């Protein structure tokens, strides 16, 4: 229970709510306080000025006309007082009232001259009054003042209202904090639960989204994208492990067998060197496979994106066609490459060349002797397609997803050279560039398209 309470207090959302409530109270107090001191202070000064003016006038009159005149003057002023707020009292030296609108000398006002704030009895009720006390010649005591009970009451009411408003603010803040806390906690708990499940090994978990498109949804979306990327990388690692197990061990076993055989039988030098040469060639192929795997891992990691530049895909296609055309013709395959357009994409020119090269290389390998391979470039909406067509056996629909998988080689290709990473690399390069690899039937043969997003016209330099 204690720990539950402690965690409740530690909750960031609750602290935030309380802090907001406190800030709210502080700000409103400051505002009301400033208003209060300016308006109330102004009224106080006005009152003091009025009282002082009247008292001085009466004091002057007493000096001019003496006691009888002063009594008349006080009576007249009481009669003329319009708002019944003015207070006058003239008393003898023993403080017995001579004339005025107070029944008795207020107890709180002593004998000393000066300003007073005291409770006076008026019309049978105690009321607050602001008073000034003069001692006139002949020890006559003059008290002039104003009833300020109304202002005191207003002040009291405002103070009470402030206290209530403050309490309400704290209450609203706390309730809002609790609601906020519940809402936020629910979303955060969902993210935490997903992360926990992933740590336990279930990489397919995703953070649920509320569909409201708020910041939490945006965060969930980003986290989900990150998780998808992690899952792909982990899959990649898993694939590479499988690939190493199957496709690197097998040739290693062959090479090892070849060398061990050589040790055991010790053939004549010529035959031995021929075997060693074969072994070196085997190892070179292994290094090739190894390099291809490393290259794939590098592409999958996305670090190559940092080196993206503006690339004219037309140039890349022409250059690749130029590299592969003679090899195709040497195999008796007609090669037609046409790319007399300029299309700008953001990318890594070397990787794009390698990917397109792999597509052409594949097509040339599978095209029958006397067949034809075409390499073309076509705009397709916001995208651009590099299409490589051959008239070979094609790929059955069921196998199309598999050929992109690492190390997969269809039955038809068992005898063809290569390590079975060509199309995986094309798919990885396409993904790196935000595009895709499409495999379609060319009736007959295969039409492989590397589809890439075009660089938008807006951000290409004029």
């Amino acid at each position, binding site marked *: 229970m204690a720990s539950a309470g402690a965690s409740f207090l530690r909750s960031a959302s609750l602290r935030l709510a309380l802090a907001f409530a406190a800030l709210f109270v502080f700000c409103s107090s400051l505002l009301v306080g400033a208003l209060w001191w300016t308006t109330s202070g102004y009224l106080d000064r006005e009152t003091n000025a009025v009282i002082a003016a009247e008292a001085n006038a009466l004091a002057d009159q007493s000096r001019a006309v003496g006691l009888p005149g002063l009594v008349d003057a006080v009576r007249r002023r009481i009669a003329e007082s319009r708002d019944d707020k003015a207070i006058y009292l003239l008393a003898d030296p023993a403080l017995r009232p001579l004339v005025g609108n107070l029944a008795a000398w207020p107890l709180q006002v002593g004998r000393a001259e000066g300003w007073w704030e005291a409770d006076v009895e008026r019309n049978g009720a105690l009321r607050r009054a602001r008073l000034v006390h003069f001692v006139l010649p002949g020890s006559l005591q003059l008290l002039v003042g104003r009833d300020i009970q109304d202002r005191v009451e207003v002040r009291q009411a405002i103070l009470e209202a402030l206290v209530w408003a403050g309490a309400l603010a704290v209450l609203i803040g706390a309730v809002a904090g609790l609601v906020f806390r519940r809402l936020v906690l629910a979303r955060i708990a969902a993210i935490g639960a997903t992360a926990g499940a992933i740590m336990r090994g279930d990489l397919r978990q995703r953070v649920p989204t509320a569909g409201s498109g708020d910041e939490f949804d945006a965060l969930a979306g980003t986290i989900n994208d990150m998780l998808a990327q992690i899952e792909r990388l982990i899959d990649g690692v898993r694939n590479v492990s499988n690939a190493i197990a199957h496709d690197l061990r097998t040739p290693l076993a062959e090479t090892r067998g070849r060398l061990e055989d050589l040790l055991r039988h010790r053939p004549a030098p010529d035959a031995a060197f021929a075997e060693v040469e074969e072994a070196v060639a085997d190892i*070179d192929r292994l*290094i*090739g496979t190894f*390099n*291809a795997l*490393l*290259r794939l891992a*590098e592409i999958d990691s996305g*670090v*190559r994106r940092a*080196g993206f530049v503006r690339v004219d895909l037309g140039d890349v296609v022409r*250059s690749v066609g*130029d*590299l*592969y055309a*003679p*090899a195709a*013709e*040497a195999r008796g395959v007609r090669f037609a490459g046409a790319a007399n357009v300029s299309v700008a994409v953001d990318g890594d020119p*070397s990787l794009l*060349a*390698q990917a397109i*090269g*792999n597509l052409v*290389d594949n097509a*040339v*390998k599978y095209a029958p002797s006397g067949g034809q391979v075409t390499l073309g470039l076509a705009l397709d909406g916001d995208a651009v397609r590099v299409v490589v067509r051959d008239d070979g056996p094609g790929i059955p629909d069921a196998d199309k997803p598999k050929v992109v998988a690492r190390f997969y080689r269809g039955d038809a290709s068992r005898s063809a*050279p*290569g390590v079975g990473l*060509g199309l995986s690399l094309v798919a990885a390069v396409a993904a790196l560039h935000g595009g895709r690899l499409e495999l379609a039937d060319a009736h007959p043969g295969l039409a492989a398209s590397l589809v890439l997003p075009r660089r938008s016209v807006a951000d290409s330099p004029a």
Partner: protein
Amino acid sequence: MKILLIEDNARVAQFVLKGLREGGHVADHAATGRDGLFMASSERYDAIILDRMLPGGVDGLTIVSALRAAGDRTPVMILSALSDVDERIRGLKAGGDDYLTKPFAFGELAARLDALARRAQAVSAQTALAVGDLRMDLLKREVTRAGAAIELQPREFKLLEYLMRHSGQVVTRTMLLENVWDYHFDPQTNVIDVHISNLRRKIDAPPNKPLLKTIRNAGYMLNADG
């Protein structure tokens, strides 16, 4: 040539040193970065072969940067097990002239080393190249063999230019791919061989004596004699 090898792996060092000495070069060896930097800065070498990762605090890139900062322009070939494009660029930016990924064939290393040393010597811009009676005019972009004009595609011209600039040297397929096509990947099939045989059909057509030779297990060489 006098060559310095800075390599900590004893087996690789022995293999490279043996190959260099058999090829008629004088080869010194340093096993740590500190020794290597000391030898490289205190003696004159025609080329330095340098492992990227060395023990003892001074790594390969530090050595290249230190030499370049001291104004030493000796050609440097960087050897590395790191094959990432980034690593390659970092090596070249530090001042390396070429970058070779381990494991490598000795033939590849020797050919690239020759090309490096040659590049360091040939400073003046040439306007014409000649190998035997094969001539290339770089300004008019014309090629003749024994006076007869030869029609070449632009890429074939570039290929022949590279071979002529490195005449008498072994040029590997990878070097051609990197320098003529600017590609740094394995094209899977023997595409370069086919380009070479097309070029050979044009420049070595009978009755001319063949100039463009295939060097087994290494690459090609354009050579007037023999």
